[in-house]
């Protein structure tokens, strides 16, 4: 546990908390970007360079932009008059706190059994590529089909309907 870890953890937590607590939805999306970037740096801290840069490209690059577009297309940046939290916010908060309590308790209980700092693995992008086209080739193809289907489906779902009264 070093200073870098604490700084990155604090940055990620602050980004996540701001994304969930701010009133303006556009500010929430920007805070979400900070949280995603902090997570990418945590991956780099864990010697997972490929996953870290994939996180940067996909989340900070694509998903954050997609969220901003959705907010602007739905006029979601206007703060509603009757608050940003639902009527049952207390129950939701209690559920989340209970989940965190259970997770933290189980982690702290098993601290003695968790392995100590292992040797940093040296994984090159070439190894990852070889694994992707040998052992993990079937999941890779399935993910390719899934992404194609999901993106076409998303466009069709969000597309204007020509017939009927819907504009």
């Amino acid at each position, binding site marked *: 546990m070093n200073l870098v870890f604490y700084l990155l953890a604090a940055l990620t937590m602050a980004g996540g908390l701001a994304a969930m607590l701010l009133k303006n939805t556009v500010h929430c999306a920007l805070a979400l970007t900070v*949280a995603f970037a902090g997570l990418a740096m945590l991956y780099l801290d864990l010697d997972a360079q490929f996953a870290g840069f994939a996180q940067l490209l996909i989340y900070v690059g694509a*998903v954050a932009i997609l969220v901003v577009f959705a907010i602007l297309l739905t006029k979601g940046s206007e703060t509603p008059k009757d608050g940003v939290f639902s009527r049952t916010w207390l129950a939701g908060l209690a559920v*989340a706190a209970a989940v965190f309590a259970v997770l933290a308790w189980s982690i702290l209980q098993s601290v003695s059994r968790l392995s100590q700092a292992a040797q940093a693995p040296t994984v090159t992008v070439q190894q990852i590529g070889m694994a992707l086209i040998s052992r993990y080739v079937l999941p890779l193809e399935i993910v390719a089909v899934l992404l194609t289907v*999901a993106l076409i489906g998303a466009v069709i779902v*969000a597309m204007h309907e020509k017939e009927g009264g819907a504009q």
Partner: protein
Amino acid sequence: MTTLAGFLLVAALLFSIGLAGALTRRNAILVLIGIELMLNAANLNLIAFWRYGPHPEALTGMMFAIFSIAVAAAEAAVGLGLVISIHRHAHTTDLDLMNRMKG
């Protein structure tokens, strides 16, 4: 406390923040953002266990995280498309006001 436990605690806290947001926010897009945070917390767990697990050279946890990132991207695209579609029909993204399945 070991480094692995620190990463697991960070992931647990991030998951709880995302869960709290998904359960309490009224805006559907913010609920999706909460779900994204929960998915990312799970990815952090996968990579932390890969790094401190017994066989990091097998790449299992890393691959799981990469595929999880890809599936989460598909989920975000479909979810936001649905929110835009609902907004076109109901002219709101407030989940407390979405109480009809008929369009």
